[in-house]
């Protein structure tokens, strides 16, 4: 089986896996980084969102062979202690209900705010529309992204 050199949250990992293995399962099963969630496997729900070179990307569709030497960031790498402004905003608003989708939501929001520090409400709604929250905590997600934008600008 081939070995891939991955750079995840600033650390290097040599991973032995089939070339078609999605990064999602490398993170979850090979590296025990289970913050990145499995929801649909076809890039429709956003639960598996990570950053690849700073862009929000669905890790369920991303083959391990395609991401060598790229900067991969997962929810575990956003902060050590929930201190990132987006996480802080999530806490302030008390966003989660079941909580399963929230890591993916936070990753989408973080990448978005890094590119658009002062978004309008409709820009927030568009940017976050790739992430499903089955509990429908959407009002709070919207509010938390607004608050986080204020903290980051």
């Amino acid at each position, binding site marked *: *089986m081939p070995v891939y050199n991955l750079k995840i949250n600033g650390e290097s990992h040599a991973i032995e896996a*089939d070339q078609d*293995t*999605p990064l999602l*399962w490398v993170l*979850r*099963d*090979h590296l*025990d*980084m*289970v*913050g*990145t*969630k*499995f*929801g*649909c*496997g*076809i890039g*429709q*729900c956003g*639960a598996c969102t990570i950053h690849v070179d700073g862009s929000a990307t669905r890790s369920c569709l991303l083959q391990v062979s395609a991401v060598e030497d790229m900067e991969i960031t*997962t*929810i*575990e790498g*956003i*902060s050590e*202690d*929930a201190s990132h402004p987006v*996480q802080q905003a*999530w*806490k302030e608003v*008390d966003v*989660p*209900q*079941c*909580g*399963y*989708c*929230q*890591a993916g939501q*936070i990753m989408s929001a973080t990448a978005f705010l890094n590119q658009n520090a002062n978004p309008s409400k*409709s820009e927030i*709604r*568009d940017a*976050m*529309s*790739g*992430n*499903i*929250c*089955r*509990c*429908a*905590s*959407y*009002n*709070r*997600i*919207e509010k938390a992204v607004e608050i986080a934008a204020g903290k980051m600008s």
Partner: protein
Amino acid sequence: MKNIVSPSFSRRSFIRTSALAGGGMLIGFNLFQACKPEAAPPVDIAKLNFNDFNAFIKIADNGMVTIFSPNPEIGQGVKTSMPMLIAEELDIAWENVHVVQGALDTENFTRQVAGGSQSIRHGWEPLRQTGATARQMLVNAAAAKWGVDASECTTSNGVITNVKGEKLGYGDVVKEAAALKVPENVTLKDPKDFKIIGTDASNVDIDKIITGKPLFGLDYKEDAMLIASVLRPPAFGKKLESVDDTAAKAITGVQDVIKFGDKVAVLAKDTWTAMKGKKALNASWTSDSKLENTEEHDKILTDLLNGKEFKTLRADGDVKKAFSAADQVIERTYESPFLPHNCLEPMNFFADVTAEKVRLVGPIQTPARTASRVAELLERDLKDISVEMTRMGGGFGRRLYGDFALEAAEISNLAKKPVKVVYSREDDMSAGIYRPAIKYKISASIKDGQITGYHLKEASVNSNMYGLIPNFFPAGAIENYQVDAAVFDSKITTGAWRAPYTNFLSFAEQSFFDELAEILEIDRIKLRLDLLQKVKGTTDERIQYSPERLEGVIKMAVEKSGWGNAKEGVYQGFSAYYCHNTHVAEVADVVLENDIPVVKKVTCVVDCGIVVNPLGAKNQIEGGVIDGVGHAMYGDFSFKDGEPVDKNFNTYRLIRINETPVVETHFIESDVAPTGLGEPTLPPAGAAVANAIKAAKGIRLYKQPFIKHMKAQAPIG
């Protein structure tokens, strides 16, 4: 109305204390016994030991309090709100409370369920009693130490003070308190003295959730564990004829292929390999009966509604007579599809079956029932079986059914290895226990401008509305009233889906009353209030709702939503409903964008009695309303030859943030015991939206999802 359940129980039957070897005091109580409305001393008190308890309060020497909560947490917030009830009466600062998901002992318990929005309602009194009992023991210990009467001592934030102003922390007296007799009578706080109940508390797991810590069943892992990806019959009614596993076994990493019943499990060390192995299986299927289609269901349910095969669930007066004497009879039919639950965390479960024991770990709303079903399946003693619950990535009723846990147990038993079954989204959507497709026909007789008769007929798949529902509004408000139900037995598995039956019935009835008001040319609100007026003072004990409380939410919704004074271009729809012991009114504001109705805002007024945790309560309400709007607008699920047409989110549509209305929540101020919020705000949402769409476009909707049927229906009225 049936008033608040006030459980009568003996505290001694479910509370026991002990000193901890390492310092501190442990208070054990049987939460599920305590929270049963009919709770009675469960066992011989003298024989009680700590194995009989499933919930614990640990008070450490430093005064820190740990509450081990055994409740299934599916996102409804009880892991936060139930410990708040204990902490309030224990009189400690919430910051000093640490909540831990307790491990479960299924041997001793028969009822461990998250479902029906009942946790807070049943826990309200016994959980406060538990906290108050512990507090009293600590006070008694301090009083003995000081040589004063316990009644002269007060508590605040974990500190006991006597009349001389001397102070002792709870931690200073835990050792002595643990040795005291459990007091028989304790006084509960006056609600006006509450310090924790009624204040905002964040989700107790928030830090773990936002940092991606392992919490959920899918995150659970053991060293020797294999992942099982299971091939199930692709259609309801199909059976496995044969399977060729050569290609699957040729995949590097596939460790085993196990056939059980009509299913085949592929086992591998990691999820991706197991899933690949499953896809490589070459199976052929047979069926010995006709496979079901949505078009046929449609016809079958219509025939049932027009037929005579009903059981009558409630009959007041004489509906037949009222209809034959009527000036006018109005009859409408409402239709809803099957719906999958689509918990975002797909079904999964861990099982380790050995000769000694059976360990089950995972997300489950009914651990005790699952344990006994596994015992039966594997022909094992119930005492060999343990269930540990993880946090659940949504439930919505799906995780009431332990089918996935049974699969895990069966595979582990055959493989002789610890196994975790993991569903793909496609597995999850096509091996569902769906909300059944239902049709309602509602007829009303009108005589001299009054509603004299009301006849509700239900045609449903596999099961009918549960017994309390016929006693919801408008029961008691219309003299001649009848509810009939008919059923079609299908091979498609169906079950509870968030607010079973009422999730659609509320749409039907609240749409019907809206249309009645138009036909009778009566104000929509007045029509509802006039009907409620007739229920006031009823002696009919079967009536479940309170006309006063329903009137209360209706009036506040009118006020808060600016009903009747909407801005130009904003169209409002009204709906009010009672279910799960909670009264709710909702007003939807709809605007037209390119002639397409868009729900901008929903004003939601809730009477759930005392609000334990407003922050968490509002989250439930917002989620319930948006879930209701989303499924009414978009939720569509059908079968072709026994197979679901949609299997993933590329074709099955769930509401997304850019389609979401703002939910504005208002509570009726109340000092009445609290009721649940996991379900009751969902049912009214569909009708509020449909009634607003009628106002906006003149189209009256009778079928869900609206998005599909809006174009098909011509404007009427």
